[in-house]
């Protein structure tokens, strides 16, 4: 027969070995919370043509976005042909922007056209992309009309100041659907950030977006700012308006598709421009920015607190229930307390290890973590009670053995059941974790850890604590007996045993 109870301090030490680092990590590093709790940013785009979710994911892969969720949608109120993109050969100053606006507003006899200017990277070179939307009702815009209206544009000053020669040389038309350039767009985005933006309305507006602007659609601000700074560029005299501006390509939307991107990473203007550039270069599709915003978590702010309170309340009730249910054995409330300690043990193991995995391998805690933790709690108590029940039964039957022996016998008797139940659950979980989709891996992984801990604590902690408590090893009396010069332990063997029997049998 296994003498499990004799090794009780070893089992408890093993638990502490896991819990202590976990709790320390939790205190100093916290949990690596995902977008469900922490919130992040959302970006809604509307592509020029239909994209698949895999394409979008691949386009986003090179960017340092944490916890990205991509969702494709369709907004029937967006007329598929109602957005046009005009790519210019260079970045342009506000004079050119105003000229474009005036031309288009004249063409469609509407001042409410949505016209935005974005400086994006096209094949490694920074150019302005004009997005035109919000055409008057009943009007289907045509590429030829816009092409004609924008045939004569004024020259622009060099908005980058440093690459005037290359701007002129690249003025030769490029094929509309050029091969994609395999180049990470990040460096260019940085270049955009450092660009002096005195005469650069779009850049100003986009920079402002980093500190939130008071409009829902940031591009509207871009337009507004462009009008506000419409005075002719009084920039340095060394920067004359001598770069010819040409329309390189005009494309019209073909879809009502929308792309919703959620990420924990704050999306500043640079990152956003870089993402849009990636769509153009690698995805060969222009995108219209529908909305960008910071988002709060999808788990209500006080849910965590409520979950903790609920678990505390449930623990108290479980303690009371076990107290009631074990009322025929002496000191029944100790069983309740030990079951709750085992429960706390499992919570600490799961939360602690999740915290450690958070900063070591980037394990992220999402809304399902709450669900997983609650499942673990339910399982833990369930398991502990089965063992305690056996102790209760044996206490009534085996009246000549010490408490220690009864607990040990009960543990051995329930071992097959504990292992079998845990094994079936662990089988299922292991299969789900190993072969299931990546998206549920954190969930099933957390459960795997928790169920394992639950089984361990019900066998090796809860009952051991009962024995330790019953023998008074935690209290001062035990310390006194051992170190305070009382009777030596060896001589008191038989008498202690008798005394214990009388106390445990009440």
């Amino acid at each position: 027969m296994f003498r499990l109870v004799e090794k009780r301090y070893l089992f408890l030490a093993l638990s502490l070995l896991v819990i202590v680092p976990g709790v320390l990590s939790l205190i100093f590093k916290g949990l690596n919370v995902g977008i469900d709790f922490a919130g992040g940013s959302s970006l809604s785009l509307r592509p020029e043509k239909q994209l698949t979710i895999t394409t979008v994911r691949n386009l986003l892969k090179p960017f340092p976005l944490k916890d990205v969720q991509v969702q494709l949608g369709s907004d029937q109120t967006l007329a598929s042909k109602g957005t046009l993109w005009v790519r210019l050969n260079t970045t342009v100053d506000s004079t050119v922007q105003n000229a474009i606006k005036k031309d288009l507003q004249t063409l469609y006899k509407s001042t409410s056209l949505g016209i935005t200017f974005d400086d994006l990277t096209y094949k490694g070179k920074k150019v302005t992309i004009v997005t035109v939307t919000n055409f008057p009702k009943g009007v289907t815009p045509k590429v030829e009309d816009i092409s004609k209206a924008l045939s004569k544009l004024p020259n622009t000053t060099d908005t980058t100041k440093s690459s005037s020669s290359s701007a002129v040389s690249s003025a030769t038309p490029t094929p509309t659907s050029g091969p994609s350039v395999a180049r990470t767009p990040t460096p260019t985005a940085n270049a955009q950030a450092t660009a002096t933006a005195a005469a650069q309305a779009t850049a100003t507006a986009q920079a402002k977006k980093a500190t939130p602007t008071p409009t829902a659609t940031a591009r509207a601000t871009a337009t507004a700012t462009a009008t506000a700074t419409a005075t002719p560029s009084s920039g340095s005299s060394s920067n004359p308006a001598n770069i010819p501006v040409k329309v390189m390509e005009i494309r019209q939307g073909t879809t009502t598709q929308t792309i919703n991107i959620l990420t924990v990473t704050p999306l500043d203007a640079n990152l956003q421009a870089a993402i849009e550039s990636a769509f153009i270069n690698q995805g060969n599709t222009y995108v219209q920015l529908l909305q960008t915003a910071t988002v709060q978590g999808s788990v209500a702010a006080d849910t965590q607190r409520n979950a903790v309170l609920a678990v505390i309340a449930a623990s108290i009730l479980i303690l009371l229930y076990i107290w009631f249910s074990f009322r025929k054995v002496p000191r029944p409330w100790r069983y309740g307390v030990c079951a709750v300690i085992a429960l706390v043990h499992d919570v600490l193991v799961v939360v602690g290890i999740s915290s450690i995995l958070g900063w070591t391998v980037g394990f992220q805690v999402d809304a399902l973590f709450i669900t997983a933790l609650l499942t673990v709690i339910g399982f833990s108590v369930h398991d502990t009670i089965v063992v305690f029940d056996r102790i209760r039964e044996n206490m009534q039957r085996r009246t000549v053995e010490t408490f220690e022996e009864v607990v040990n016998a009960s543990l051995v008797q329930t071992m097959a059941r504990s292992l079998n139940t845990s094994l079936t659950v662990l089988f299922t979980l292991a299969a789900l974790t190993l072969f299931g989709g990546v998206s549920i891996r954190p969930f099933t992984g957390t459960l795997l850890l928790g169920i394992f801990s639950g089984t361990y604590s019900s066998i090796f902690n809860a009952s051991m604590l009962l024995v330790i408590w019953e023998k008074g090893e935690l209290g001062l009396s035990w310390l006194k007996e051992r170190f305070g010069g009382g009777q030596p332990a060896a001589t008191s063997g038989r008498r202690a045993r008798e005394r214990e029997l009388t106390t445990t049998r009440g």
Partner: protein
Amino acid sequence: MRRGTALLLLLIVILAACAAYIDWPNTPGIHILGINHDFKVNLGLDLQGGVRALLVPSNPNEQVTDETIQAARNLIEQRVNGGLGVSEPSIRVQQNGNQYSISVELPGFNTGNQTQALQTLLQAGNLEFWDTGSTPLSENSTFDPSQYTSTNPGGKPWFTGKDLDPSQIGVSTDSSGQLQINFAMKGDAVAKFGQFTQQHIGDYLTVTLDRKVIQSAVIQSAINGPGVITGRFTLQEAQSIATVLRYGALPIALKIASLQTVGPTLGTDSIQKSLIAGAIGLGMVVLFMLLYYRLPGLLADLALALYAGLTFAVFKVIGVTLTLAGIAGFILSIGMAVDANVLIFERVKEELRAGRLLAAAIDVGWKRAWPSIRDSNFSTIITCLVLFFFGNTFGATIISGFATTLILGVLISMFTAIVVTRTFLNVLVPTGVINHPALFGLPAGSIAAATAGRRSSL
């Protein structure tokens, strides 16, 4: 076979048949006796997509703070979940500068035109009772309080949604089959409403929701108890309005700024993968039970199949939305449902080893295992009830949703493990065909010689 056993067997067969009917992928549903249920499985946003509505404050004069928008968000979440917390929406507060908006993603709603139902669910939900004197107002017209200041002192309604008792709001049909919303006032408002209706008999009582008339009817007599609002609603609208009234009005008025249908966030490959993984896991559980416990294991596997069928049927009936994680949890619960069986079989084995007759061993084993099954499951049920109460009281739907599905799983697994497996064994034991020790995974000769067959009273 004893009478009780036969009855139980019949009950099990009927339950299994019902579950099979509901679980059938193309089930015709039930459409009789006023019950209308399609038994469609609701899949989550990750699996089938849904709609995504962007709500923005519609009244520019209203002050929107972080608290009010959070409160609005929580209310919408409660409305969408309608109590059980199993609808799996994703609702986020968004912010751009000082402009707040709420993004609401709901699974489903993307088949057919359900915009109306969605709009009802997302409206502010200010219910008001007005006295419009002798003027009846037509339904759906916009109500202008300034025209009725003579009968409504100060241009204020007599009663509002805040005076209603949330627990008494429901939908029913009157004798002519017209849908109506039941309500009752609460607290002081009960007496005040009785007094008001007493004093204004003959006047038109006009009920408005967000200043749109939903009913305008003559007060026939004093209404001292519950009342009804009869309007022209579809069932879905009536239920949405009832839900909106139950949880109260939003602190700010919102409008739908954009509405898009969204596709699933997960590819079909990940669904496929997880289902295969689930099948592998379950296959291992079934095989394990069969190899370790032999014949009882086989019976337990049958009981497990019934557990899965019944649980899935209940999920379909109460409209649990299944996300991928929900499916994983469901598969996991099947693994956990064997627990009671394992407990019982271990005890039966012990009793057999102790030399008891098979029938007696099963009896005693069951009795001995019962306290631990009872206590462990009761404690889980207590946890569920506490979680459900907290989740519902504080609007943490994720917690109440968990509690709902877990308590269903516990109850059904107790039923299948205890009643179903027991009945199967009771049917088989008296026949005497299962007395071979190997069927129980025990060495030969370990089942006492006096066979149960002789003692049976078939």
